[in-house]
């Protein structure tokens, strides 16, 4: 045996009760589960630890990061062994050279990936999906099950017209053909968006597609038994239900699986969420396959004035200043008395929100005294209001003052827990690798197993593990993964059930171009095995093994 894991509490991903046993690994696959008498070249003592299949994260935007970091750090440290990038109509392939900057702009606008990271971290040496797969396979530690984005298909086939009109019959047929090429090259499905805006704050290309075009692309998904992912109007219950019905129709017509994300569960609208779930249950009872994705973590958003935050998206004046400005012009806008007055006026109605924001980070010594205080508290100390305190601090810090709006929603443990448990709900929507300057998208699985399983006891360990391993693999048609079972690929996470959690969020400078992002360290995850080799050990860090695969791609 290459590796033998001994005496662990085996939670095998099936939902069946845990038991004490060994796992033998040979040639990248699980060879034996139960009692293993053979010695392993590497022996791992898992006494007192939980051994589970590697976690699968079905909603990520690691597309760009995979070009400079084949481990998608820090996903693996949190026990994740397979990620699904390419969600929400955006993938990095297929992509003609002429459209590169358009797509970079969309990733920047929608997923908040800094432009400089693309400039300094990406060598553009692909156009087709197959070439992109070859490119990321060169240095892959984590497994990747990539979606192909609908907006990108439209750009390839229609060029500029992709953001202006519906497709002709010829163009639709070309998109079908292109989708087939992507699925042949390893795409696990198609993603589309009904809500996103591009770098010019215009609707993304997929929003110019009519239902007939989407239907035609789903016919191709049916040929391959692949999935459709959509990001829908998640802020509105009736629209969400309308999209569920649309997905159910596509699912029933083409016999495909569909998923929509995210579904947030906010206080004040539990009745609406219950209607959404009731509709899902009805449609699935009728034979459709529609899976809403629910994230585990509560919503919080951090920001500075230096980048356009989601928090300002409804304040058009503010958002335009931040979206299209440079640090100098943003500073100038708030230093100009007349413009500042206009901006203050626009944002005054949101004073209750500004008052609750917490100053989380500054650079100057003089303002350290305010860190950890709410803007209401700081305003009182400074004899102003919360909004002006936020602007003043930002100017004093040359825009390097960071604020957090904590616990904004999706934070009722009992209700969220009941949704995470629900048999018609998929746990997902982490957005891993996206919004890197707004919040940390890492550690959702640790939060599930620490907070909801251990602390709140709203799910059993076996239920929760099944939800993020074999259920996800089944829904996404990912073969040979998600179970600790003889013959399955050895993607395995070993963790301490007594301590597993997500660590505190912090700001780190590790993005190409000296860029920053918010991350969280894992707590309690000890060893992560991918493709039969140790990819990460909590004491030794990352290994040199690169056993990650693009699932569905021909193995090279």
């Amino acid at each position: 045996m290459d590796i033998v894991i001994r005496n662990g509490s085996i939670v095998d991903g099936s939902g069946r009760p845990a038991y004490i046993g060994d796992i033998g690994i040979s040639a990248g696959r699980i060879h034996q589960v139960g009692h293993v008498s053979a010695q392993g070249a590497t022996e791992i003592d898992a006494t007192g630890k939980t051994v589970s299949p590697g976690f699968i994260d079905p909603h990520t935007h690691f597309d760009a990061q995979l070009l400079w970091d084949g481990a998608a750090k820090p996903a693996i440290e949190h026990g994740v062994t397979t990620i699904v990038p390419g969600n929400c109509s955006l993938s990095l392939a297929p992509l003609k050279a002429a459209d590169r900057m358009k797509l970079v702009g969309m990733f920047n606008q929608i997923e908040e990936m800094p432009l400089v990271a693309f400039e300094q971290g990406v060598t553009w040496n692909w156009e087709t999906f197959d070439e992109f797969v070859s490119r990321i396979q060169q240095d892959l530690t984590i497994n990747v099950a990539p979606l192909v984005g609908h907006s990108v298909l439209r750009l390839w086939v229609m060029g500029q017209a992709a953001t202006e009109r519906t497709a002709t019959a010829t163009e639709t047929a070309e998109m079908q053909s292109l989708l087939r090429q992507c699925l042949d090259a390893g795409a696990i499905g198609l993603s589309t968006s009904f809500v996103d805006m591009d770098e010019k704050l215009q609707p993304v290309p997929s929003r110019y597609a009519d239902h007939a075009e989407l239907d035609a692309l789903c016919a191709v998904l049916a040929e391959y038994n692949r999935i459709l992912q959509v990001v829908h109007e998640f802020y509105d219950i009736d629209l969400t239900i309308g999209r569920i019905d649309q997905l159910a129709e596509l699912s029933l017509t083409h016999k495909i699986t569909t998923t929509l994300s995210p579904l947030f569960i906010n206080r004040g609208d539990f009745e609406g969420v219950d209607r959404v779930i009731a509709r899902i249950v009805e449609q699935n009872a009728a034979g459709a396959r529609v899976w809403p994705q629910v994230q585990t973590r509560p919503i919080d958003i951090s920001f500075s004035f230096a980048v356009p935050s989601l928090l300002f998206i409804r304040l058009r004046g503010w958002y335009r200043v931040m979206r299209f400005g440079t640090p100098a012009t943003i500073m100038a806008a708030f230093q100009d008395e007349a413009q500042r007055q206009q901006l203050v006026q626009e944002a005054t109605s949101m004073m209750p929100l500004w008052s609750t924001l917490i100053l989380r980070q500054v650079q100057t010594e003089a303002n350290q005294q305010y860190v950890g205080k709410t803007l209401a508290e700081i305003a009182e100390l400074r004899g102003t209001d919360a909004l002006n305190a936020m602007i003043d601090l930002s100017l004093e810090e040359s825009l390097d003052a960071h604020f957090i709006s904590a616990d904004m929603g999706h934070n009722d443990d009992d209700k969220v827990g009941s949704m995470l448990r629900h048999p018609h709900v998929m746990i997902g929507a982490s957005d891993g690798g996206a919004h890197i300057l707004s919040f940390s998208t890492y550690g959702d699985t640790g939060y599930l197993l620490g907070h909801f399983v251990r602390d709140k006891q709203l799910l059993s360990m076996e239920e929760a593990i099944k939800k993020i391993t074999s259920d996800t693999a089944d829904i996404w048609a990912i073969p040979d993964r998600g179970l600790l079972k003889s013959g399955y690929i050895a993607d395995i996470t070993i963790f301490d059930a007594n301590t597993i959690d997500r660590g505190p969020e912090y700001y780190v400078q590790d993005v190409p171009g000296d860029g920053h992002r918010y991350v969280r360290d894992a707590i309690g995850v000890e060893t992560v095995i991918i493709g039969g080799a140790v990819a990460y050990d909590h004491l030794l860090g990352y290994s040199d093994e690169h056993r990650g695969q693009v699932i569905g791609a021909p193995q090279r």
Partner: protein
Amino acid sequence: MIKVRKSIHPSATDTWESIAARALAATPLDEGVASLQSWNLHVFSRAPAVPGSPRAGNPILPSDLIFVEPPLLAQ
């Protein structure tokens, strides 16, 4: 079965007027348009397509869902 608000997928060339004429045929056109707009604030509040584009002046996108009846609470 839960009650679901009735909606349509617009065609590529649909406008408020063409949808009102089709979906609210028994209602005077201007009233129908006003009703549709009030039931679809997610579309009505959106900036229309820019001048010079094939959809200039029209905020409705081909991928939209357009409600053709009021919110359930108002019914």
